């Protein structure tokens, strides 16, 4: 996928509290295939405590839609982390 260079690109960097959280975020996002692979590609990785999402697309419109979707998913991940990280041994109430 890296061999094709599409004209528009954008890099999103989201800092997390720990490196483990950033790794979890990257591996949670990675499995889902992008809907139009010939128009847009996304690559997820983590660098220390940062989640890095690299977007490439055929137009700025396509990139905007893709970024917006990824941010929605990141919001769910962050909410999960906020509520549950490090709490596997406790009861909730």
């Amino acid at each position, binding site marked *: 996928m890296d061999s094709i260079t599409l004209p528009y690109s954008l890099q999103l960097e989201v800092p997390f509290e720990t490196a483990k959280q950033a790794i*979890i*975020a990257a*591996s*949670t*996002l*990675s*499995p*889902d*295939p992008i809907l139009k692979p010939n128009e847009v590609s996304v690559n997820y990785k983590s660098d220390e405590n940062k989640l890095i999402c690299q977007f490439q697309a055929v137009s700025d419109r396509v990139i905007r839609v893709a970024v917006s979707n990824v941010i*929605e*998913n990141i*919001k*769910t*991940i962050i*909410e*999960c*982390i906020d*509520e*549950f*990280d490090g*709490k*596997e*041994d*406790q*009861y*909730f*109430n």
Partner: protein
Amino acid sequence: MTVDLDQYVKPGKGHYIALGLEGSANKLGVGVIKHNIGPLSQTNRAEVLSNIRDTYVTPPGEGFLPRDTARHHRNWVVRIIKKALIEANIKGTDIDCICFTQGPGMGAPLQSVVIAARTLAQLWNNIPLVGVNHCIGHIEMGREITGADNPVVLYVSGGNTQVIAYSKQRYRIFGETLDIAIGNCLDRFARTLKIPNEPAPGYNIEQMAKKGKHLINLPYTVKGMDMSMSGILGYIDQLANDMFGKQPKKVIDEVSGEPITPEDLCFSLQEILFSMLVEITERALAHVNSNQVLIVGGVGSNERLQEMMKLMIQDRKNGQIYATDERFCIDNGIMIAHAGLLSYRTGQTNLINDTVCTQRFRTDEVFIKWRDD
């Protein structure tokens, strides 16, 4: 030989606990189920620890769209998971596996829920993930709740209409809809009449149908073991538009001379659709030589459907009908936890790259490892 369901039990433990997440349509459900070791039986039942649901309800006349439904699920999923854990009174380390609906269903809602499943599984020391076929969830939960051991299954919901029978470790589809699902047909007619979607459009149609008296003529479209419903919907929609449109036209019942009401339309639509279901279910019973019918799926909570099915089954020797109430009929998380746990106990776990959801996932694709009859 019976299937060994306890190869994967955690050392020193006498039970399993599974968390199930469902979000394939407009219901977001999270449930926690407990199985004690040993095969499930009348004396060793699965135990429902919690079963929480939140439904995305749209205004009258509107259906639920994938984008908006996904947004609803994202808004609620973490809160609902927490609520289910609180009610079940368990902690993360008690959980053996996290089960999620992998399909069939609407893409965006499914995806929004699996994100939470993946994150939670990894946060809590990589709890195994188990992908579950939504239809299998309905079937297994129905069997567990009702105690039906080998029924013909009528699976009727907003997205699916199938007559299913078990054979050689697969739930095989005997007959199904050729176009739209029965629940979709009812929901869309509810939209035409601008009937509220709260608590459910089908429920409101059912209540109106109770007041209907006149049966109007509608097409009857059984095609062998399958059925078609879009033509019926088109016909009755047209009729409703004629009656309540810009230039209202009075339609008179031929026998009594009384005017046809919206209640009569609901009544007639239900009668014709349910008769078709009864016909193909009866034929499936004859094919597989069974006398048990299990009704699952959201439309299965319709009491008129249950009644009509009962009339048919009573004429068969030792005929029995099994149905569940809305807690288990309508989409829920507990059925995903239950079917997922059965699969987990026979060795299924999904690696994270193998947790991609799919809109199309047929019932007979799943190998039923936990049954050997």
